[in-house]
């Protein structure tokens, strides 16, 4: 559906998923790498733990549905060629430190002079300007700065991040939406603009507005093992089952208390609690705790009742109950469990792309949304280093064989 939309992807590891999403949606995405390949190709993990530019699983993960060329932007000739490509591009995505591309004459003002309709998307940790714009970063640093990290982990230990990088993926998904809003505008106005995505701010959305607590004068949320502390109320989200762990929502209020009431009725029927426990006012329960009408010891006792109920069943049994009765319970899946989940299988979610040279089928999470008229399809495996050089330099830019050979000799491509 984005056919005819040409995207130049200059991103480092921070920005790769944005171009992939645009490629999924049908744009013609050209990944531009330095000669020899992107530094991301040297990032772990590697297929079968053997390093090699075509074996980085990190590279594979976020470069499908792109074509790939090499181009040395450190050289004047390379920059000239790049400007040629910019003339026919609709969107450019980059994730270098602020000012890096501008220093090479490839900043927004330089390129909009060549192509005023260009949508130029920058993905950085803290944004293009401001006191922290030049801060050194990593996934962990951005998680810390965003206010997300303090919420993760056990209260008796330091906060802990997710064991696979996440911060920039949120920013990339935001950048895709932003790029398309700007592109939509350009269909009306004929004009592009600079879109400045800050990962620190993107992660604001990853914490249920708790970041606003101090500003609006509300309670601070804090981490605890397998759950969260909302003011003085300790809300467990991870519970033991007979054979592992499940998540279960045991909360209160006019919306969530309804689920709790339903589950407590069932717990009573199964003989895990008395009538008085069943009949507590689950709608007003949080207020009762906060105003002292219900002692916190009693809340702890009731949580013990729920814990005993959940411990009496396997993960599968409690999930079956949840599906049957609308309880808010689900098992904690491993990667193998996710791959075997009948829902994803029934929806034919998993997509494979064959890599003949490696003799391997790559299994990807499938389309991020199902569009009825213009479905997302996975057309291309991640490109090899310089795989589409000839196609693009000869075909698109109209260079001759000889010119391309010269460029290779000069180390430009």
């Amino acid at each position, binding site marked *: 559906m984005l056919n005819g939309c040409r995207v130049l992807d200059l991103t480092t590891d921070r920005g790769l998923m944005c171009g992939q999403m645009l490629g999924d949606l049908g744009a013609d995405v050209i990944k531009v790498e330095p000669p020899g390949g992107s530094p991301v190709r040297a990032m772990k993990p590697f297929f079968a733990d053997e390093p090699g530019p075509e074996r980085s699983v990190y590279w594979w993960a976020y470069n499908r549905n792109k074509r790939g060329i090499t181009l040395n932007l450190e050289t004047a000739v390379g920059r000239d060629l790049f400007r040629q490509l910019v003339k026919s591009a609709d969107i450019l995505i980059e994730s270098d430190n602020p000012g890096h591309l501008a220093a090479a004459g490839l900043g927004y003002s330089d390129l909009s002079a060549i192509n005023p309709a260009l949508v130029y998307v920058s993905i950085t940790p803290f944004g293009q300007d401001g006191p922290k714009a030049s801060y050194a970063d*990593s996934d962990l640093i951005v998680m*810390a700065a965003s206010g997300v990290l303090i919420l993760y982990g*056990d209260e008796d230990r330091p906060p802990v991040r997710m064991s696979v*990088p996440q911060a920039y993926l949120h920013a990339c998904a935001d950048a895709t939406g932003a790029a398309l809003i700007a592109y939509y505008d350009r269909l009306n106005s004929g004009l592009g603009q600079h879109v400045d995505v800050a990962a620190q701010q993107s992660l604001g*959305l990853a914490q249920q507005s708790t970041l606003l607590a101090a500003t609006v004068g509300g309670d601070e949320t804090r981490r605890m093992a397998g759950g969260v502390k909302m003011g003085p109320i300790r809300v467990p989200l991870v519970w033991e089952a007979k054979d592992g762990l499940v998540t279960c929502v045991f909360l209160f209020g*006019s*919306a969530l208390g309804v689920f709790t009431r339903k589950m407590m009725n069932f717990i009573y029927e199964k003989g895990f609690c008395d009538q008085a426990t069943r009949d507590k006012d689950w709608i007003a329960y949080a207020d009762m705790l906060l105003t002292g009408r219900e002692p916190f010891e009693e809340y702890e006792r009731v949580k013990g009742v729920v814990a005993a109920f959940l411990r009496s069943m396997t993960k599968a049994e409690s999930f079956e109950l949840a599906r049957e009765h609308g309880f808010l319970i689900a098992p904690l899946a491993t990667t193998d469990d996710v791959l075997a989940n009948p829902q994803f299988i029934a929806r034919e979610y998993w997509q494979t792309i064959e890599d003949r040279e490696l003799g391997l089928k790559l299994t990807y999470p499938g389309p991020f*949304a*199902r569009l009825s008229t213009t479905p997302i399809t996975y057309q291309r495996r991640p490109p090899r280093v310089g795989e589409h050089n000839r196609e693009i330099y000869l075909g698109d830019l109209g260079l001759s064989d000889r010119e391309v050979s010269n460029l290779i000799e000069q180390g430009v491509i």
Partner: protein
Amino acid sequence: MATRLPLSDVKVLDFMWVLAGPGITRAMADYGATIIRIESTQRVDPTRTVGPFKDNNTNPEFSALYGNNNAGKLGLSLDLSKPEARAIVLDLVRWADVVSESFSPKAMRNWGFDYESLRAVKPDIIMISSCLMGQTGPLARFAGFGNLAAALCGFYNLVGWPDRSPSGPYSAYTDYIAPRFGLAALMAALIHRKRTGQGQYIDQAQAESALQLLTLPILDSVASGRKYSPIGNDDLEHAPHGIYPAAGDDRWVAIACRTDDQWRALCTAMTQPQLADDSRFGTFAARRAHREELDRLVGEWTARRTPQDTEQMLQASGVPAHTVANTFDANDDPQLRHRGHFVPVNHAVAGETFVESSRYRFSRTPADVTRASNALGQHNQYVLEKVLGYSDDRISELVAGGVLG
């Protein structure tokens, strides 16, 4: 003169509620779309009952969570069990470019608002349905919150310490991911419609969007058979890499040395330059092998100073470091201030409050985040009179008939 906002020609009839859906239309409102949000008077939006609350007031109009997700939208309250309310909805479908909803599958069909029915009314309508597991399949009707999808997607088993049960990510993790993907899909559909005049239906399973963020472990476990489990704050590429104690209660600082040079700079900052040449710490592999000792040495140094002091000192030497920010730090953060992250808005009931800004900046058509979320039923008169052109008599009848709740 105000610049024309990118989506000022886009009209959305919005049934989205709770967390994952409204984030999509909030972003569209920031960039000029007109969003008319239908609120059922039968079932309150759960986020109105969840904090943080302005001044800790648990009145549903004081929820900063609801306010943040719904800033800039118009609110129309309807009792959808009444046929007159459903007639109003169909008039709004004729007005709209997009209909969005995030109920569990079946709800829209029961009201007669499924895609086929809406398309009969408005042939080029774009409809997006966003639910936990998708509109089809054995778990289609498994409804709930993002923590359930996060568990089913495997996110819970990736946060924690190797010697303990997983801690899991904070709360409803997939609810924070899905709106970004929903927006991208919806924008692509709007672009396609602008070019071709065709509408379409979008089935977004929040779990299927969120799994994009686990592409790496999924590819790797299928290709290489590697098993993923929580590894605390360790990293495959960097050491030292962790969260270190700072002076104060529950105060921490994050440090991630990505290169040997950054490690040397850290040793200099700690006034222990000899550590850089210590054979236990000379290379990444050595540092990772001796990481317990390494983390102890770094932690002894950080524990004596505030997280901000460590952050500033290390960043001045080019070492990635940052305070592990809590809500109070965020409120004072010079970078978030510079970006105008916390935006004052005036709410009809709660008075002056704050929402978060757009997460990106546009150079030519910056976001317009000036309007608060709707109070329940706040825009009933406006929508019926100005948008739908209903007469005063008709509006009075609807009010008298309890159609607006």
